């Protein structure tokens, strides 16, 4: 009886360790924070039919993203900035609520975090 229990215990330990093997294979997407994922989604959403540039927006002689479309990126950008411990008041003070500044700041955080994730993955492998 004891032997059987021991055998089962070993088998279970074996299975668990195999499970961990799988979990160690990390990808950039699996290691992103929810705020990073939402930031990604916001950029992708610029391609949704209702978010595509209007005829009027296309006619402008600048390639600067229109305010209407920048506004689509702002909520996810703010969340990403706040997730680093920056306070709402600090965010307002530093950006003055300027959409471009908020998006650029979030992009810089995003790229730094992505780089860190890539480095961690490299170090693990």
């Amino acid at each position: 009886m004891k032997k059987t229990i021991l055998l089962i215990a070993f088998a279970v330990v074996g299975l668990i360790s195999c499970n961990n093997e799988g979990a160690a294979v990390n990808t950039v997407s699996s290691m992103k924070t929810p705020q990073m994922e939402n930031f990604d989604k916001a950029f992708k959403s610029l391609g949704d039919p209702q978010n595509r540039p209007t005829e009027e927006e296309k006619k402008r002689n600048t390639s600067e993203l229109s305010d209407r479309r920048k506004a689509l990126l702002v909520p996810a950008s703010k969340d990403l900035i706040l997730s680093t411990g920056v306070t709402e008041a600090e965010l307002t003070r530093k950006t003055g609520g300027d959409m471009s500044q908020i998006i650029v700041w979030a992009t810089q955080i995003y790229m730094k975090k992505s780089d860190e994730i890539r480095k961690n993955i490299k170090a693990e492998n």
Partner: protein
Amino acid sequence: MKKILAIIFIAAVSLINAQNLKLIVNNYSTTFDFHGTLSAHNFGGGCYPYVTTNSPAMVVVPADANMNNGNELVYANFKDQYLNSLYPNANWVVQLSATTQTVRAWNHASIAPGGVISANTKWSSSQFQMYYAGTSTPEPSFSGLIGEPQDPCTGASSNISTPYGDVEWFNITTGNVDYSYLQIY
């Protein structure tokens, strides 16, 4: 003497205006790989320096390579892209005038960040052709010259719509930061 002064002046102005530039390519298409050149040029009068990828093949950003899965292309400058980007480009074609053209390796001093060429160019455009994912079969109708609109140096459009997908080029700028995005849907 005048020439030297002019060069020093331009170099000084460039240093003051040193910009934080980035080019980001997001290919959200799941059907097509992006094959194209990536160019930067002078926007401060005249088109030169004019710098273009020369890999020798095209830069390829596969289908569904974008920020969602961390496979986007990010080029900060002509040099660091080779060290840090997922899509390193080994050589650049550098035009200093309409008649002079040199191929420079990514680590050549003349195109290093902070140098005159790097400081006087901004990401401008891409001549691209989309290919069915993982194949060497192009989709002839899904191609074009995308980039800064109303740019006499390139003649590119900032929006290209085809039955196969759409491509757009836009910027987000503030202060001395200028991020250029090329997105394929």
